[in-house]
């Protein structure tokens, strides 16, 4: 099995994961719901005189983020465990496919699904923006950056869901991943708490604060809603951070999955 074959196999697995996810009707319901929420943002924006744009961006991007995370967890936890439960994995791994190729292919497939979903949900947000403001402004570019950060969040959530599902049940994987998402969204507060705490407690708080994924740095919705610019340095830092964190979680998933007996 050469590296060219490896890339091809990862690509096939990713495409199949994407195809399966896109054809799943539950996914459509979630997208429809998110688009509905963007529509609701228009309604709320219209009764919020002078702050229509702020409300639409805030509500719209929050909807994209939350529904994206739900989709990421919903599909991510089932990626490995569902394949083991239904034994679809058996016929894949009895072919010249390495286990790590399967995990990485699944991750790319899910990421691709989420990028496409985000594109459609973002389209809803921009249509809502156009409806309330009647035109696009320069500062709307930052909405694109916020959407990029949301996709980075999805990368980490997908990787975590995959990591947990490589050794845990789907339900527990969902609970762990969502709990980490909630705690990670408060990462900056945790770091602040760690700075003012002394002794062993301070040590522990610092360890936890830096171990959990920092989703709060990836949340710039409020800033872009106010039309504030996002620095290039933050974009670079967050990109590198999200990629490294996802890579670590995927590596963990691979290490566990390589040794797992598929009973």
């Amino acid at each position, binding site marked *: *099995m050469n590296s060219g074959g490896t890339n091809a196999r990862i690509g*096939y697995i990713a495409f199949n994961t994407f195809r*399966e996810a896109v*054809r799943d009707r539950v996914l459509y319901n979630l997208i429809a719901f998110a688009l509905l929420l963007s529509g609701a943002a228009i309604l709320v924006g219209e009764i919020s005189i002078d702050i229509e744009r702020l409300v639409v961006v805030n509500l719209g991007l929050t909807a994209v983020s939350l529904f994206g995370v739900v989709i990421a967890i919903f599909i991510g936890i089932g990626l490995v465990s569902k394949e083991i439960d239904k034994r679809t994995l058996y*016929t*894949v791994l*009895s*072919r*010249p496919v390495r286990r790590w190729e399967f995990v990485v292919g699944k991750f790319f497939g899910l990421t691709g699904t989420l990028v496409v979903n985000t594109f459609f949900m973002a389209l809803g947000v921009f249509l809502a923006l156009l409806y309330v403001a009647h035109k696009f402004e320069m500062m709307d570019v930052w909405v694109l950056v916020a959407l990029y950060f949301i996709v980075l969040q999805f990368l980490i959530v997908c990787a975590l869901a995959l990591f947990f599902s490589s050794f845990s049940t789907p339900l527990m994987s969902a609970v762990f991943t969502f709990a980490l998402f909630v705690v990670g969204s408060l990462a900056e507060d945790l770091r602040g708490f760690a700075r003012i705490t002394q002794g062993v407690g301070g040590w522990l708080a610092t360890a936890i604060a830096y171990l959990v994924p920092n989703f709060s740095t990836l949340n710039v919705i409020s800033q872009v809603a106010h039309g504030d610019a996002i620095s290039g340095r933050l974009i670079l830092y967050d990109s590198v951070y999200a990629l490294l964190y996802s890579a670590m979680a995927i590596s963990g998933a691979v290490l566990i999955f390589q040794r797992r007996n*598929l009973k």
Partner: protein
Amino acid sequence: MAAIEILDLEKSYLVGFWHKHRKPALRPLRLTIEEGEVFGFLGPNGAGKTTTLKLLMGLVFPTAGTARILGMDMDDPRVKSQIGFLPEQPYFYDHLSARELLNYYGQLSGMAQGRSARVEQMLARVGLSDSAGVQLRKFSKGMLQRVGLAQAILHDPKLVFLDEPMSGLDPMGRREVRDLIQQLRHEGKTVFFSTHILSDAEALCDRVGVIHQGELRGVGAVAELTSATQGKVEIIFCAQKVPAGLISLGAEARVSGDMVNAVLSEEQQDAALDVLRRERLKLISLTPVRRSLEEYYVQKLQVPEGPKEESRKGVGV
């Protein structure tokens, strides 16, 4: 060359709350399957058949021992491109059609040229050409089994592993699977299949192995097992009651309409024929009583648990 050489392959799981107790799923198994052979792996549910197949497929890892498949170590990645596998009660991706699924598996198997044509050929071979575009979630259990068979032989493997291939199939479906295995034999493929349906094994296999409680109880050639006489003959003749002379020879007889079916030892065969001549009764047939595969199977299952030299060597009838 041996297609499969299983060398003391062993699997046990840690059980209990603290994972302190070891439960054997497969005791050291030593078995050789020759190229071109159709081998039936027999045993009741939970005997260790699926565990053996999963070990050979690399789906679970052995506690000890190893195996060589087509002359290569079972962990060698090259092995996978030359083998096909049908898991027990297969289930596939709900939202793919049979054609899409086979194309996907073909891609993963490294098939490039002629893949589409081969997929259509396989769909026709398992009788699914008309349903090729239908999503698999709408397939019946029997149809999924056919898809499973198609994916197992799609890439023209030298060696095919089938786990309970007749499971869930109606009589017609079972017959089709039997025909397919016969075709594979004619193509020179090696087939290793597990089953607990003895008539299928008897009809298809060159050799069978009986496994029970994770332990190989015996291996033998089907032709030899079923040709072995038990020192008894079966005599069928026309009569409405059993002659007293035959009963005195120790025959076990039953009357069915105008016919009598009597079983007695080979030594009494001539004496029994004399009785029929004396009584002027019409002889229909006289055949040696052969052992059925079922009797062999039951006999092997009744062997008490424990190390047996015969089983460890993987030979012996």
